[in-house]
Structure formats: structure tokens, C-alpha cells
């Protein structure tokens, strides 16, 4: 008798299996769902995608026809605009720079923020509320509370900082604080505030709304998102020459050519 054609199995492994599919229960469209719960991608989903793409294409054309992208004079290192601002989506970081050490505000805080964001699913491992906006009515209440809490606090802290600095805070700190104007104002106080106010928010929603892990995660996420938004808005529309604070309607025009005085 001749051996069958093709590659031969190793001795002891004559029984050959092919892996056709590996399906976990929670990763497939559920088989026990009735047919009415599903829709064909062609035409239902593709129609929506096509219409959305068309509307956005038309919208983008319209916006691009109506508004020109900004272009100023050729760059020159001799002429610094006052204020020099980063693109708007980084003005939150630039705003943060005014209130603490540069490396802390510009690198350490955003890095930790991103790491924490990425870590959310590893902290909140429950499957509660998947696919439901805000999980529950309680979740919605917590979202609103955290939004108001962080908006008011961030805004008040920015105003307080501006007020104190206008009244000789820096000079007072260099004379009387241990470590001068660096240690406490640039490191200890901002770090304590960022961590302390986040923990306080969690404690409040746990007491007030009996929040579970998912719900305090909603609180902390909302709090940070609204802080980010407030910082962006203040940095974009309330900072004028010298990065001083102005009312949004009273911001003086940027000095296009600011010669540094020496």
C-alpha cells in the first residue's frame, strides 16, 4: 500500500485537525436574537453612510468656499506676536502653563491624563450599562453634577489666580513661602489641587449619589472633559497680550510685531 500524497503527519500526530473558526459567545451577533432585530447592511447602513458622506462633502465645500484658511506674513524670528498662541486644540495646555511649572503642565499632566484615559476600561471592568447612554438616570445626574462642579471650579481657580497675581502673589511667595515662588506655587499647590479636587469629586458622588465604579468613573471623566473644555475656551477667547485675562468680548487685538524690551 502506498502512502497518501501530500505532506505526511509526524509520528504520533496522525490525526490532523484544521482550525476553521474560533468564536467566543460575546463576540458575535447573538444567534438567539430574532431576525427583526437585525438589518441588512446593504441597503440600510450603506445608505446612511452614503448620505452622511455626501452631506459632509457638500458642507466642507461650502465652508471652504466661504472661509479662507489663515495665512499671515512670512515668519521672522525678529518679530514676536503678543500673545503667541498654539493651535486652539492645544490652548488648554497653554492655559495650564500659566498656572504651574511648564514641564508639569505641558508634559507630565497631559501624559498622565492620556494614560489614565487609556486605563479606564481596566479600572471599570463591570459590564453594567453597555450600550445605554449614561448607564442610568443616576448616571445622567452624576454627569450633570460633575460638569457643573468642574466648570465652576476651573473657572473660579483661573479667576483666583489672575486676582492673586494682580495683587502681588508672586512677590509674596518669593519672600515668605518655603522654596520661594517655585516649590509651592508651581508644584505643590497645583498638584494638590488637581489630585485633591478629583478625589473630592469622587467622594461627593459616592456620598451624594451612592456611585458605583462605573458612576464615579463617569464623574471623573466628565470632570476632566469639562476642565479641558473650560481651559480651551479661556485659552482661546479670554487671553490677550501678555496672556492676561480679559472678558471674551474685550480681548485687545494681537500685537503683530512685539519687540522684546531688554
Amino acid at each position, binding site marked *: 500500500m502506498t502512502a497518501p500524497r501530500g505532506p505526511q503527519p509526524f509520528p504520533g500526530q496522525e490525526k490532523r485537525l484544521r482550525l476553521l473558526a474560533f468564536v467566543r459567545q460575546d463576540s458575535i*451577533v447573538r444567534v438567539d436574537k430574532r431576525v427583526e432585530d437585525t438589518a441588512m447592511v446593504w441597503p440600510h447602513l450603506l445608505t446612511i453612510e452614503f448620505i452622511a458622506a455626501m452631506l*459632509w462633502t457638500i458642507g466642507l465645500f461650502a465652508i471652504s468656499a466661504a472661509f479662507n484658511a489663515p495665512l499671515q506674513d512670512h515668519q521672522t524670528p525678529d518679530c514676536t506676536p503678543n500673545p503667541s498662541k498654539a493651535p486652539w486644540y492645544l490652548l488648554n495646555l497653554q492655559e495650564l502653563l500659566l498656572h504651574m511649572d511648564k514641564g508639569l503642565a505641558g*508634559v507630565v499632566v497631559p501624559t498622565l491624563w492620556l494614560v489614565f484615559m*487609556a486605563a479606564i476600561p481596566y479600572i471599570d471592568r463591570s459590564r453594567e450599562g453597555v450600550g445605554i447612554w449614561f448607564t442610568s438616570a443616576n448616571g445622567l445626574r452624576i454627569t450633570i453634577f460633575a460638569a457643573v462642579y468642574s466648570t465652576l471650579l476651573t473657572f473660579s481657580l483661573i479667576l483666583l489666580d489672575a486676582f492673586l497675581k494682580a495683587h502681588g502673589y508672586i512677590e509674596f511667595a518669593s519672600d515668605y513661602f518655603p522654596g520661594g515662588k517655585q516649590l509651592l506655587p508651581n508644584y505643590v499647590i497645583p498638584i494638590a489641587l488637581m489630585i485633591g479636587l478629583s478625589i473630592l469629586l469622587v467622594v461627593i458622588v459616592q456620598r451624594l449619589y451612592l456611585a458605583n465604579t462605573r458612576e464615579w468613573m463617569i464623574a471623573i471623566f466628565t470632570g476632566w472633559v469639562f476642565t479641558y473644555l473650560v481651559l480651551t475656551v479661556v485659552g482661546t477667547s479670554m487671553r490677550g497680550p501678555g496672556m492676561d485675562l480679559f472678558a471674551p468680548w474685550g480681548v485687545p487685538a494681537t500685537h503683530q510685531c512685539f519687540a522684546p524690551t531688554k
Partner: protein
Amino acid sequence: MLEIPAQIWQKTKTSYIWRSLFRHGYPDSRKNQSLAVFTNVFLHLHPVKVRRHALAIPYTWCMGGLSFFLFLVLTLTGTLLMFYYRPTTEWAYSDIKDLETVVVFGQLLRNMHRWAAHGMVITVFLHMIRVFYTGSYKPPREFNWVIGTLLFFFTILLSYTGYLLPWDQLSFWAVTVGYEIARATPAIGDEFAFILFGGFQLGPNALLRFYVLHVVGLPLTVGFLIAIHFWRIRKDGGITGPL
């Protein structure tokens, strides 16, 4: 009279060439609708069927799809812009000026690229908001959320590296702010800024580095991450919904 076009259509549909292109009939039956999605390289990113709630715009906001749409628009307009732009301090600014004044539809092209870039930062952010509040990062989608946060980070970086390229006062001083931040990195500030900007001040090296990152490095990275992101959406059971 109408029989002639009908006959031509019939002949075309049964021709050898047509059947080599499309391996199914017109998608008006369940079978052909399935085959249309299944046998098309672009459409097969989708499953054949989705759960009904996944179609609801109040649920998804369409923001993930629109972020991808804007990424495609940016790739297309960006490639066209590359024909007219040289990333050197001698030419960069005048090439942008030429786009605005000499190149036919150059201004429109640049505007589209600019506004789509701002739009993508917003849509990616809103997509992240939607995914968080609907609890869509929960098992088994944990790692896809991590990919998503990376995509958010790289979207910002893409936008930021593009910001320098016009080499005007606006872009130069905006990127200077970022340069100062990079230098303030604890312990490795100067080295980090030197690698990223190619020197101890913003000059020709910074322009070239940002250009290469903007048109090659970052789009490839983002494309790679998008592929994983989409793949995992499929593998994790599609768009989330109530259990």
C-alpha cells in the same frame, strides 16, 4: 424601443467581463445583498447584517465614521497639496502663496485641508465622548478603547505637525509654544526637543521633520491603528447596544 437598452443591459450583465468583476446579481435579494457586502474589499469592513440600534444616529452620532471620512478627505487633499509644496524655508511660504493666487482651485484645496483637519480633531473628540458615555469601552472592547485614545493623540499630533508647514508668523510662533513645552520635559527636555525639532531653534530641520512626520510617519501610524481599530470592532461584535 425600450427593449434595446434592456437587451444591452442583459447582455452586459451576462458577459464574461462583467461576471469576472461582480460575482453576484443586483443586490435586491437577501442573498445578493449579502454577497455584495461579502465579496467587496471595501464593503467587507462591514458585517452582512447589523443590529438595528446600530443604525440609530442619536446613538452613534456617526462620529467614528465621519472621523474616518475626514481622514480620507485629508489624505486626498493632502496628497494633492504635496504636488505644490516644498518643505524648505526658501520655498514653503511662497508655495502656499502660489496655492492661493496661481494654482487653479488651490485656495479651495488648502481651505478644505485646513477645515477638515480642525473638523477631525472635533469628530474624534466627540466620538470618544460618545463611546465613553455609552459604556462602549467595557469588555470585550477594552483594548480597542486604548487604540482609540492613541488615535486621539495621533490626530492632535497630525494636526499640530501640519500647522507649521505654511511657515508664516501664525504657524511659526504657534509651534514655538510647543517647542518651549517640549524643552520643559523633565530630565530629557533638551534631547527630546532636539530630536523632534532637529535643533535648538525652529529652522529648516524642524520644517523638514514636521513635513516628513505629517505626510508619511503619522498618516501611516494612524492608518495602521485605524485598521486594528476597525478589525477589533468587527471581532468584538460590532457597535455596542443594550445587552
